[in-house]
């Protein structure tokens, strides 16, 4: 497969310089390098600038409502575990309105990859505060500065029991591509937080460029949970890479009784209810 096999040919409408371009390319390349066929992949996208990615990724897609990427993706994966399911959410989508689903997807360990385009701002609605906007930043909804301490998504994912926790940077496409590949290969819930500058409403490009470094460069054992917790709290510099990784049974496995074939591939037939009816006699 080539990268362009995953290109719908539509021209992205993101602002020039937007970090979403880097993510788009990283994902296309990852899919191509994994040798996946477009029809066996489903992306689920939230509402926001990030969500446009389903117009540009030539795979199956569900552009869902704001904040519900995880339940949608979970339903898809359970119905047909043979599909490769990837969720794309924004920081507003994932950490504001949709936050209630994240810890559950993590502990449930459903085998999907969840890529959060974290630009620390609501892009599509023209620049309001999100849960990851730094303290004090002025936005349209915080004209006197954000009064809320930002959320630490990595720490939250770790605390929730996620089995694969990584951070990427849209400005390092090759590295991000590798993370996406690892995330897709990981059997279980893969959480990838991507630092993605929004050049129009919160341009963090320069600062991120300076602060970001690859975990591999300083050495880190991704099976070390304590170390992952510590690294996730680092603020002076921002490590990118796989913070933590562990194998655990996936949620689909709990439904082995329903997977032969899975619901989506089942031939319709009248069920035999006679045994069930016994209890009503």
């Amino acid at each position, binding site marked *: 497969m080539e990268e362009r096999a995953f290109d719908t040919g539509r021209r992205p409408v993101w602002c020039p310089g937007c970090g979403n371009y880097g993510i788009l390319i990283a994902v296309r390349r990852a899919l191509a390098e994994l040798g996946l066929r477009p029809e066996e992949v489903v992306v689920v996208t939230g509402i926001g600038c990030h969500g446009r990615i389903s117009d540009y990724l030539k795979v199956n*897609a569900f552009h869902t409502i704001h904040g519900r990427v995880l339940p949608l993706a979970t339903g898809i994966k359970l119905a047909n575990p043979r599909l490769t399911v990837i969720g794309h959410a924004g920081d507003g989508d994932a950490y504001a309105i949709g936050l209630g689903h994240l810890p559950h997807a993590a502990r449930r360990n459903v085998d999907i990859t969840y890529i959060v385009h974290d630009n620390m701002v609501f892009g599509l609605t023209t620049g309001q505060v999100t849960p990851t906007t730094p303290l004090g930043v002025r936005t349209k909804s915080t004209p006197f500065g954000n009064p809320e301490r930002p959320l630490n998504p990595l720490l939250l994912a770790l605390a929730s029991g996620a089995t694969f926790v990584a951070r990427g940077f849209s400005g390092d496409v090759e590295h991000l591509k590798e993370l996406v590949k690892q995330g897709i290969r990981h059997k279980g819930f893969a959480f990838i937080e991507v630092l993605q500058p929004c050049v129009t409403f919160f341009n963090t490009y320069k600062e991120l460029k300076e602060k970001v470094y690859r975990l591999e460069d300083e050495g880190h054992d991704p099976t070390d949970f304590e170390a992952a917790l510590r690294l996730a709290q680092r603020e002076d510099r921002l490590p990118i890479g796989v913070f933590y990784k562990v194998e655990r049974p996936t949620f689909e496995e709990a439904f082995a009784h329903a997977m032969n074939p899975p619901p989506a591939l089942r031939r319709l037939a009248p069920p035999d209810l006679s045994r069930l009816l016994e209890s009503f006699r």
Partner: protein
Amino acid sequence: MDSGEVYVLVAGPAGAGVFASSVIIGKVLLRQGYHVFVTNEYPSLIRGGQQWALVVASPSRPVYSHRRRVDVLVALDRGALLSNIGRLHERAVALCDAADATGDPRVIALPARDVVREEGGPPVAVNTVLVGVLFGMLGGDLETLKGVVRRQFRSREVAELNARLAERGFHLGLQLQGKAPARLAPRGGGGDELLLDGNSALALGLLAGGLTFFAAYPMTPASPILHFLAEVQRDLGIIVFQPESELAAINMAIGAAYAGARAAVATSGGGFSLMVEALGQAAMTETPIVVVNVQRPGPSTGMPTHTAQGDLRFVIHASQGEFPRIVLAPSNPREAYELGCRAMNLAWKYQVPVIVLMDKFLAESYWSTEALPPLRPEEGSVWRGEGGEPYARYRITDTGVSPIAFPGTPGVLVYANTSEHDEYGFGTIDPKTVRAMQEKRFRKLSAIQREAESEGVKTYGDGAIAIATWGSTTMVVREALRELEGVKLVQVVWLEPFPRESFAREVGARRLLIVENNMRGQLASLVREHVLREPEGFLGRYDGRPLDPEEVVEFVKGFAARG
């Protein structure tokens, strides 16, 4: 008492086995060839509240609902005796343990707790003894009783203990035959019949309709659907589970349906409220989905364990924007089964959300029901990838229905989009396309409307007065019909789209009364809107209880008398 009917009220504190006893009594009566109805009332408490269950049985005619009559009260504690004795008629009797008895001449004190103690049973088993007494007194069949009791318990030991307790009670009861306000007249038959509650029937219907994915967050009175399906999921090889919220449940179900599962969810009003946004998502993406709403009284938390029909307008109009949907309301378990299956098939045929509107009274009452007809899932408008033009998920067609393919189909990409989109699913704001898409979605409505007209209205009896109802209230009115002449009952089964022509035709020039388990007359408002007709009378009840047939009779007679 007339025609051998018997009305038994079991009452006691939560945890004392009131419902189990009522089901045992109902099943014994069913096995003895009776038509049976069982209903109950309880507060939203785990312990401490009083609850009751009424068993009605007739040897000769279907029992549609409760009545106010009580022949025998089985009181499981003194509180139950005190708070229910007022419901007994003159010739009725109350059975209770000696320690709970009062001086009322109708009270029969029994050594029930002593029997339990002698047999080494737990205190809670006193109900089994009293059920035994009941059948001894009424002239029931001991073996049938013991058989039913045994099957109620999983552990063999406990089953045998309870069978013994029932037998000892039975012998005590034999001595009371003189005091019995009724006598059982066993008839044959009943072998094929089921004692079925609305929730289980609905669940069976969903299964018959091909259900393979069910997600629900518990909410009284819909939770038993989840419990039932969770229990049988391995037998049927389907996915059943409880996610973190109703938001998650419906979105997972939509995801599953998009992927190709036959999916449904069930909840009550508060949970339905949380599903409203996703309902619109299902509509916009044309993802088939069945949503069951088992109503309880609102607004808000309201009365979790009581009954109402207050959500009709809500479910018809829920979610922003305009889209076609189907709303079906069964009145009894048989219809719950049929409409559960029908809902699945309609959703997959038209790719619209289908809502099944139940209520607590239907969901948690039991009716003896003839063997369920075999029903089957229909593939609907699914497209499994047989060649032709390039696949477009939202192909504009004459019927408005576009073939639905599932991701994974070779050579096909499926793009579902909650934003307004073109035929391929790509977002658009082009006014022509937008309009065409909106019209495409609504084009389905003409076929759906035809189905509504052909099967959306049922009638019973005839006369110069028409009574319109929907849902479980239909059963109450059917019961009332026994004492009414010149009345035609018009049950609206499809509430949306409203079968306006059939309804108008069936009602004709009759004077129209509407009876509903709500305050404002929601069916009445639909009749005004769709038939441009003001009903001549409205009877509503909104205290959390189903209507009594007696008040319906009174209302209709009063109306007829006024001319």
